[in-house]
Every structure is written in structure tokens, then in C-alpha cells.
């Protein structure tokens, strides 16, 4: 029987883009705990180094790398270093995100900056690494981290009475991520390269909690009555990276407490 455990990445080399934020750190923890040899790449290598120190001391195979996803040469260089150091690339997690827009009225320049990182950077990264996986007999698995804000619009009711709000670019590039995922799933499927997307709902931030009126209202928008904990996203990502998901490709897996099911 092939490996059916959705909880093990033992023996797999995985590259994660973005690892300094709340979700990124939780993913590093989940992937490391599942036994992956994990390379975490970010603009900010020093912060990654600091973040993985504890896991490394505990014996996990965690490695920090620097990358600029808007530069094709930088992404290709990262691919080459990973192949040189670890021999192959079994998995990729695209969790990099840039949020240059601060509100709905922000400048066109801020929109353009967002597209450069979030759209162009995604495209460069996926094509570069899917090509590398397609050249391997065993193929590989890519998991993009989108958001339910790539599936549905935001309900303004959530933000009433708070300083919180929405930005337009996020809805655009997370929605685009969903169909770019399907496109590459089709293109690379015959090469045993699977491409899927995980769409988290809102994640509770224990270090800097969202304001109370928002938390209560967000809970009402889900069927489990609460925001996600960051650690709850990792299960879906580990599962899709693992061989337990070997017949799953082109899928969007929301981890949203039923937000989009109703």
C-alpha cells in the first residue's frame, strides 16, 4: 500500500516562500513537525534564521534562504542552491505576500507595486519550480496559499466601528491565484506535478488580537463560531504536499470554518 498518511513529509524536500508572518511561522512549524527537509525563503533571511533557530535546535531540518521573487534570476538561483544542497525538490509552498496598499483610496503606484510582487512574483516562482519538478521522475507538489478573499467579497458589516478595512489588490491576486493554480495543474499534470491551493479564512492573531467587535462578528460569519488558529492551516498544507494527496490536483481547499459553505 502506498503511503496513505496525510500527516507525514518524512524524506521530502520542501521550499516555503514567506515565513516571517503569523501564518508563515505556523507553516514552518507544521512542515518541520511533519518531517520535511524545509528551506524557508524570504526577502528577509535574517528574520527567517531567527525564526527557525528553536526548531533547528530541536533537531528539525530547517534552512533559511534569501530570495527576491520579482527577479527571475534570484528565483532560479534559489532553485539551483536547493538542488545542489538537497538533490531534489518535492514540494513548494507559496506563502509570500506583499501588502503595499493601505486602503481602498491608495495610489495607483501602490497597486502596481502589489501586482509586481503578488502576481508577477507568483508567476515566476511557480513556473521556475514546476519546471524543476517536471524534470524529476517523481514530479512534485505545489501548494499556493490564497484566501477566502479570493473566493468571495468582504462583508462591510465585519469592519463597522473598527479601524480595519479592505484593500482591492488582495481580492484581485488571490482570485487570480486560484485559476493560475488550475492552469498549471493542467499543464504540469502529465509530468506528475500537482498544483493546489489552500484558502484560509481569517486567522486570529494572539500577539496582536483583532478588535473585539470584529472578532465577534467574524465568528458569526463562520459555522464554527470563531476565527482560525494559525496552526489549523498547516494540516491542509501538509496533506496536499504529501503522497496521501497523490490524486488531488487543481483543487481549492478552503480552511474557513464553513465561511463559504453557507
Amino acid at each position, binding site marked *: 500500500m502506498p503511503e496513505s498518511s496525510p500527516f507525514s513529509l518524512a524524506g521530502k524536500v520542501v521550499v516555503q516562500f514567506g515565513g516571517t508572518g503569523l501564518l508563515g511561522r505556523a507553516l514552518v512549524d507544521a512542515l518541520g513537525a511533519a518531517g520535511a527537509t524545509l528551506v524557508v525563503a524570504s526577502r528577509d533571511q535574517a528574520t527567517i534564521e531567527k525564526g527557525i533557530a528553536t526548531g533547528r535546535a530541536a533537531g528539525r531540518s530547517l534552512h533559511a534562504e534569501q530570495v527576491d521573487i520579482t527577479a527571475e534570476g534570484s528565483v532560479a538561483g534559489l532553485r539551483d542552491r536547493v538542488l545542489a544542497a538537497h538533490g531534489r525538490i518535492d514540494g513548494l509552498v507559496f506563502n509570500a505576500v506583499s501588502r503595499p496598499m493601505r486602503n481602498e483610496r491608495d495610489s495607483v503606484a501602490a497597486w502596481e507595486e502589489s501586482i509586481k510582487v503578488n502576481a508577477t512574483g507568483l508567476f515566476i516562482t511557480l513556473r521556475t519550480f514546476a519546471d524543476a519538478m517536471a524534470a524529476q521522475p517523481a514530479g512534485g507538489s505545489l501548494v499556493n496559499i490564497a484566501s477566502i478573499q479570493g473566493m468571495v467579497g468582504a462583508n462591510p458589516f465585519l469592519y463597522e466601528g473598527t479601524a480595519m478595512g479592505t484593500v482591492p489588490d488582495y481580492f484581485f491576486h488571490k482570485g487570480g491565484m486560484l485559476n493560475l493554480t488550475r492552469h498549471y495543474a493542467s499543464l504540469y499534470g502529465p509530468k506528475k506535478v500537482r498544483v493546489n491551493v489552500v484558502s484560509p479564512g481569517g486567522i486570529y492573531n494572539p500577539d496582536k488580537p483583532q478588535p473585539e467587535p470584529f472578532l465577534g462578528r467574524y465568528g458569526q460569519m463562520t459555522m464554527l463560531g470563531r476565527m482560525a488558529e494559525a496552526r489549523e492551516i498547516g494540516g491542509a498544507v501538509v496533506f496536499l504536499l504529501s503522497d496521501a494527496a497523490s*490524486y488531488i490536483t487543481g483543487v481549492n481547499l478552503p480552511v474557513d470554518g464553513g465561511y463559504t459553505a453557507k
Partner: protein
Amino acid sequence: MSATFAGKSIWITGGAGYLGSAITRALDAEGAKVLCLDLPGRAEALVREHGLQSTVPVTLDVNDAAALPAALDGLVAAHGLPDGVAHLAFASSSGYRLENLPATEFQKTFERALTPTFVLCRHLAEQMKVRAAGSIVLFASMYGVVAPDPRLYAAPLTPNPIDYGASKAAILQLMRYLAVHYGPHGVRFNCLTPGPFPNPAVQSAHPGFVGELAKKTALNRIGRKDEIAGPALFLLSDASSYVTGHSLVVDGGWTAW
């Protein structure tokens, strides 16, 4: 990894069938306490044949919806309330061509596919909600999402019938309704939505058909039965604790392009 299911009790209806047996065996290997529910003799044979260690074979005919609550109560009394249930046991295909399908046979598919599923889900979820935990996984199909292409089914094959896909679409909506209803009580409902997993009899009798099915997927192959086990374990486990109301498609990309 066995820690994930150690001490957990999982019921699988249709647990000795083609796909069900792959899930039963994977859960047994992970150390779950498994109740394998199937028609007379089938679960016993599976346990014997594969030397399953923590699986209890049980005979249950889910088609008798009126008798189902009492049968479930008996199982709960004997084995305790399950932490998770995978429900695969529903015969849900008339086997008729559209032109020849009698209305009575059309209706029968819905009675067999939907009514026992509704009764089983409500009966167990009402008890699970008291302890605010539980995960129930229903089985839909890609044919509850997209229609079968009749050109795939050359004679003597009968195109996958209309009652099958319509009842699978109904299962998807049943699942969403139950997820929304029981979510506030901590009970999760999701569907597994398989693509082409023809059984060995179809595979050996109709290799040309299997080749046509493979071409409809991005991975260019049909699914292997073991490939349904991992997704089932994911949805049954705490690794999916914030996933509810979802149809997890396992179709090699059939519906992605």
C-alpha cells in the same frame, strides 16, 4: 503518526467495498478503533483476509431507513459514540439508459441514496453535538459536479445514469446544510468527491474505456483505490479541524480544466 488516530473510534459504512476497504485498512494501520459496517459476511472477510488488528466487523443494511435509528443506537450502546464516520454505503445508480429509465427506478435511487444518509447523519450528529465534537464524511462524485460525457460510454457500456449524478449533487447539498446546522455544535461535515476510480472488474473488462477516463484527467490516469484513503483520513482527523462544509475533490484534475 499513529498518535493522530490512537484512541479514536471511526465507523465506515460500506467499509468492505472497493474504496471503503482502502479507508478501513489505512485507519486500522493508523491504530484507530474501526467499526467496519457492511452487508452480511463482507466486513468479516476483509478483517480476516488482511489480518486487521483494531477493526470490528459489523453487519448493517443501511437501506432500511425506518430501522436505522434503532440499529445505530444498538451500535452506540455496544461500541460507544464514534469520533468520526465515513459513509460510503449507498447503492445509488439505476443502471438504465436515460431513454429507458422508469420513473419508479429513478425515484428508488433517491430513496436509497438520500433518506438513509439523512437519517444516519442526523441521528449521530444529534448525539455528537452533546459532546461538541465529531467529523462526518459523505461520499459524492465528480458526476455530482459535472455531467458525464456520453461519448465516453461506447456500447455495451451504459452511460452513467442521470439518477446517479443527481443524487450525488443532492448529497453535496445535504452535506452543506448539515455542516451549517451542526457547525455551531462542533460537528463537522464534509464530502469526498472522487473522480474516476473504476473497480478492477471494469478495469479488466473495458481497458479502452479506462484509457478514455484517464485522458479526461490532468494526471492522465485513473485513481488507485489507496488514493482515496489519505483524503478520508485528513477529513476525519483533527488536522482538518477548521474545515467544514467542503467538497474535497479527488479526481486527478478532471474538474479543474
